[in-house]
């Protein structure tokens, strides 16, 4: 494996992402909306109206005993807020790495087909393995970094708002540690592996995006299930889910890799 070639392809792909508004915008806007703006507005409204909007609602109050909530929190409304911001938002957060990995991989494989630059690359001495590793890492690393960046924004902005209002931090659950270190990378890997399957057939970036977008659905179901109180997220569950998704991604990549040859790719151009 020639790592200089792998690094060069990764660097070139990351530059292509930053040069394309169509690719860059969702990677910037989605984390900004999901991780910072929407939660910040919810928190500000909740603090402004003393969470009258959510307390008193039967199914919401039923969630309180299901989660470990710090005693220092002032009242039931702040406990509901704590649960929402620490636990309910977590699967929503996972849409960021899945979207980012899928968008970057679609652009770096199918987008390159569309721009007719892939053929030139395939005529160089780069091996099938180097090509695949470069394309996988070139999407995986930025996707994880984007989700970490989103979390950093979420952590700083929400804790800042809450600490000004109440003098303490609202985001303090340990669940975020396995979520960021394990779940976020494994979710990125899953998005990536699904995009890899799609990219063997898709001819345009939009086609790849639309098909790979189906992977978001299980996470939407997870959000609904959690809000309904049918599933309570705990750190151990996050670790288990991370391992399961990691294994699933590895299995998909291992199965698709032998088919990811220059002949197979060039035949779809």
């Amino acid at each position: 494996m020639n790592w200089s070639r792998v690094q060069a392809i990764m660097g070139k792909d990351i530059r292509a992402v930053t040069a394309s508004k169509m690719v860059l915008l969702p990677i910037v806007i989605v984390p900004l909306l999901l991780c910072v703006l929407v939660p910040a507005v919810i928190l500000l409204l909740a603090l402004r109206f003393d969470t009258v909007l959510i307390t008193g609602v039967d199914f919401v109050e039923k969630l309180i005993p299901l989660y470990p909530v710090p005693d220092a929190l002032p009242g039931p409304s702040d406990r509901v807020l704590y649960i929402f911001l620490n636990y309910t938002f977590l699967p929503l957060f996972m849409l960021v790495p899945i979207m980012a990995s899928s968008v970057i991989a679609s652009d770096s494989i199918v987008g390159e087909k569309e721009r007719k630059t892939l053929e030139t690359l395939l005529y160089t001495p780069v091996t099938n393995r180097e090509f695949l590793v470069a394309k996988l890492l070139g999407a995986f690393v930025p996707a994880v970094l984007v989700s970490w960046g989103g979390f950093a924004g979420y952590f700083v902005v929400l804790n800042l708002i809450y600490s000004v209002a109440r003098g303490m931090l609202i985001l303090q659950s340990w669940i975020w540690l396995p979520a960021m270190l394990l779940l976020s990378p494994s979710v990125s890997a899953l998005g990536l592996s699904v995009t890899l399957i799609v990219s063997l057939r898709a001819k345009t970036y939009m086609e790849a995006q639309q098909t790979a977008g189906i992977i978001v659905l299980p996470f939407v179901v997870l959000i609904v299930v959690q809000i309904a109180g049918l599933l309570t997220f705990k750190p151990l569950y996050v670790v288990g889910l991370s391992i399961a998704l990691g294994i699933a991604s590895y299995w998909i990549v291992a199965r698709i890799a032998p088919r990811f040859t220059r002949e197979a790719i060039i035949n779809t151009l």
Partner: protein
Amino acid sequence: MTAIQADGLTKTFPGGITAVRDLTLEVKRGQIFGFLGPNGAGKTTTLRLLNGTLIPSGGSSSVLGRDSREEEVRSRTATLAEEARMYEHMSVTENLRFFARMYELSPEEAEARIRELLGRMGLWDKRDSKLGSFSTGMKKRVYLARTLLHRPEILFLDEPTSGLDPEAALRVTDLIRTLAREQEVSVFLCTHNLVLAERICDVFALLREGTLQALGSKEQLLDSKLEDKRVQIRTVDSTSVHTFTKEEEIDRIIRKLQGKGEKVVEVRILRPSLEDVYFRTVGRSQDELV
């Protein structure tokens, strides 16, 4: 010495379409080999088989004594395909530096080579411009510089002048010829541009529907494929073209015209061109074209 060898090379795609059938040919070192045929004849598939991108369904091919599929073949050759492009959001030097890394050139070697090639192509002043801002002709020159970065021993060129105006096409053609002669690079040139091929190629292969129809130098093809030659005879009243196989027949044609009372003022033997051989061998007839 042999640069490229194909023995019974065949390619059938999963859909059952056979694009190349039992192709046998040899390209010698330093030769410019014109691979001619109409669209869909199998030229690009053959090129991709020879440069190791596609795996043959039958037969075999070797490049510089190695199986076409070996990585070393791609390190010692370069391919300039008709549709293949470079990165438009990157500058000329950024593009060339990227491809230099693909060919494992050291940074110093790459910089020296980039300077030399861009100077040669008349693009040194434009080295920091984004490729996307270039005209088609300028882009082709950058693509050609890319193919020459690692001093390849063989160039696979697929329609290198497509999309160029006649002047730019001529410049690229002359550049290929000069480079091939100076650096003793073998060139495998796929094209249906007969003017380009006739201008620079030493040997020609004519392909139709994946099957080799003719192979040889221009003279060999003219001798083998055009048994009847043509003579143009101008009389006071008209001009007519007659076919003949032996030169003695011209005298008989002239006497026949004179017997009809015609006064011959000019006799000109029409020199057959590669185009004549092409249309006779693989091209559609004039009737089909109409």
